[in-house]
């Protein structure tokens, strides 16, 4: 069983009259990729900044690695903020070395790892370039490498793939999966719901400072899904009981809405018993995109 490495316990924060967080509580487990979701202004960045001790919560507490979060934990935490940049007038490797050294690496080790990470993100040739020579995509990859080179136990990445082409998006996703394989925890804040479905183990969705959705990605999707299945079959699809509606999607694909309380396997059994030649049968889960939109709209309503 995974142990929580980060615990947010009834966190509250207000900026003057504007309430940013209203008693937010959830855990992030060791070795998982955790999706922190929410519309713009929901309070995600505030929560992350509280975790990183950049700002203080008005109420509540943050536990990290089983202890109340303090400055001593900063070396084990990494943070790629949404509003980010590099020292434009310095050499790439010098900036990376500095960020690594700030996380507790010796200068020599930080420099060695910086060069290794530049190889890893396919930018070994830019090591001595001034940062202002980098393209936006290059700069983005250097920023990510700068944060990951200290191999933090918990890393918070706020929109790490914004502005990257699909090839580089895939590269970054591979880096996150590698971290998970190595038992490192990643908190991923993103608006790309396909990434959440592809990468995240669990999610928390915050809206207007409140935690609206929290749990494993599949479980959340099931919770917000209609009782629907998709069937790929050869020939016509026979009528079976406990089906509320059948929609022909063409090319041998049907979408079947089940009657309330009917388990999908009973429908499959009924179809086979009725002589249907079923090639594929899959319960349909609601896309994270739909869940996100629905929760946010409900919140506004």
């Amino acid at each position, binding site marked *: 069983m995974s142990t929580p490495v980060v615990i947010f316990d009834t966190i509250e924060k207000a900026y*003057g009259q504007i309430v940013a967080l209203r008693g937010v509580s959830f855990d992030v487990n060791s070795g998982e990729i955790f999706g922190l979701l929410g519309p713009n202004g929901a309070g995600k960045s505030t929560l992350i*900044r509280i975790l*990183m*001790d*950049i*700002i*203080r919560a*008005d109420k509540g507490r943050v536990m990290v690695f089983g202890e109340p979060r303090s*400055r001593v934990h*900063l*070396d084990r*935490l*990494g*943070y*790629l*903020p949404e*509003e*980010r*940049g*590099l*020292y*434009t*007038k*310095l050499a790439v490797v010098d900036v990376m070395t*500095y*960020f690594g*050294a*700030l*996380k*507790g690496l010796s*200068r020599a080790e930080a420099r060695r790892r910086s060069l290794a990470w530049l190889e890893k993100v396919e930018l070994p040739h830019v090591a001595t370039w001034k940062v202002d020579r980098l393209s936006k995509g290059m700069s983005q990859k250097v920023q990510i490498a*700068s*944060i990951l080179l200290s191999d933090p136990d918990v890393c918070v990445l706020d929109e790490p793939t914004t502005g990257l082409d699909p090839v580089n998006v895939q590269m970054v996703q591979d880096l996150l999966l590698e971290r998970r394989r190595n038992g490192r925890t990643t908190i991923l804040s993103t608006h790309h719901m396909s990434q959440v479905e592809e990468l995240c183990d669990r999610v928390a969705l915050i809206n207007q400072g409140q935690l609206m959705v929290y749990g494993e990605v599949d479980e959340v999707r099931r919770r917000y899904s209609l009782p629907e299945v998709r069937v790929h079959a050869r020939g016509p699809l026979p009528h079976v009981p406990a089906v509320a509606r059948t929609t022909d999607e063409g090319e041998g694909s049907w979408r079947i809405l089940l009657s309330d309380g009917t388990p999908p396997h009973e429908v499959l059994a009924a179809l086979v018993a009725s002589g249907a030649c079923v090639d594929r049968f899959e319960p349909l889960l609601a896309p994270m995109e739909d869940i996100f939109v629905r929760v946010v709209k409900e919140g506004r309503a």
Partner: protein
Amino acid sequence: MSAWQKIKTVATFEFLSAVKRPGYLIATFGMPLFMAAYGAVVAVPAYIADKGSRAAASVYGVVDEPGVLRLSGDLNVGKQSPISEEMRRALEAAGQGQALERALDNFVFRPYTSRDEAHAALAARHLKGYFVIPQNYLRDGRLDVYTPDSFNVSGSDSRNALSDLLRRRLVEQRLDPALSARVVKPIERTRRFAVTRNGEVRDGGSTASILRFAVPLVFMVLFLISVLMTSGYLMQGTATEKENKVVDVLLASANPDQILAGKLLGLGGAGLLQISVWLTMLMVTGVGVVPLLMSARVDVPWLALALAAPFFVIAFLFFGGLMLGTGSLGTNMREAQQLAMVWSLTAAAPLMMMAVLIREPNGLVAKVMTWVPFTAGPVVILRASNDASQLAWWEIAGSLLVLVGATWLGLRLGARLFRIGLLSAGARPTLREIVRQARLTS
């Protein structure tokens, strides 16, 4: 990673980033060269003109109607200078004898039998001027002086030379030679002694006490330059970090106190290195000053020199912390400098009050300023330099303690303002917002 390691990391990065900048290198090594070149541009033409004018003696005509001077032809009265004997000795010891020689005027008085004759010689510019000693000179002591209609700055020197000559001629052969010499020059030379409040007798020559004035003055000027220059680097660095959006990454790695301390050490070190380079270049080029000081039996204020380093560093950190914290509230470099201006003016206060402090170095004003952290450094150095016996050990210790305490508070306040300044985006935070944020970050 310990707090000190974080500070060291920030300091090393800031120092190396600063000293590698072309602007820094140009200012550090180019400024002395620029000053030397500027000095040459100003001094060389003046030197050439001066050399030309002093190569020949200054010839003045004299129309001596009563015949008191008894001139039979040109009379060279020799070099005339108001420079004191001890200063002359010191300059000669420093190898500046030739320069001294060049600096002295050589006057020749040429007799003319009539005003018309002298007038014609001046109009033809054969003379620098001419004096008319009228018939009734002995009764009313009046002289007429004629000079060219151009600007003339050597008039008083020639008048003094003529006065000396008149005195000599008026008394010689009427008094015995010794008395005559004293009438012409009542004070040949003086020896000065200074008596401390403890009754101790010390050399009181003006040159001997030069360091007692120079040490605090150099301290104040260097301190002010360091504070102003380094605060510029600090504010520039912070503005760059805001602009480059690396603030959150920094704050997620080290706390504001550590970042502020690291910046102060790193950029402060760069600023001090720059001043050291300038001082070294100055000392190398002005090495001749050493024998001058030795020869003049300079009274070295050792206590002031010993206290200078610790007071300099602590006061520097005190002002640096406040300036960086206040400056970081600005949204751009100009606004940052305006906000930090109040500290610049405060740092300059002892220099502005120098006249009062020198007149009464152990007066009430100086004693009060010894305990005020904003002025403690320069005032303690001034008092220790002037008369160390009048500065009690508990005043030094207390002043240092107050300064250390104020520096600690200043760094804490600076760090808090620094955090608020770093996290504020867009418009400058209001005073109310600053107070509110300061409470939240406590």
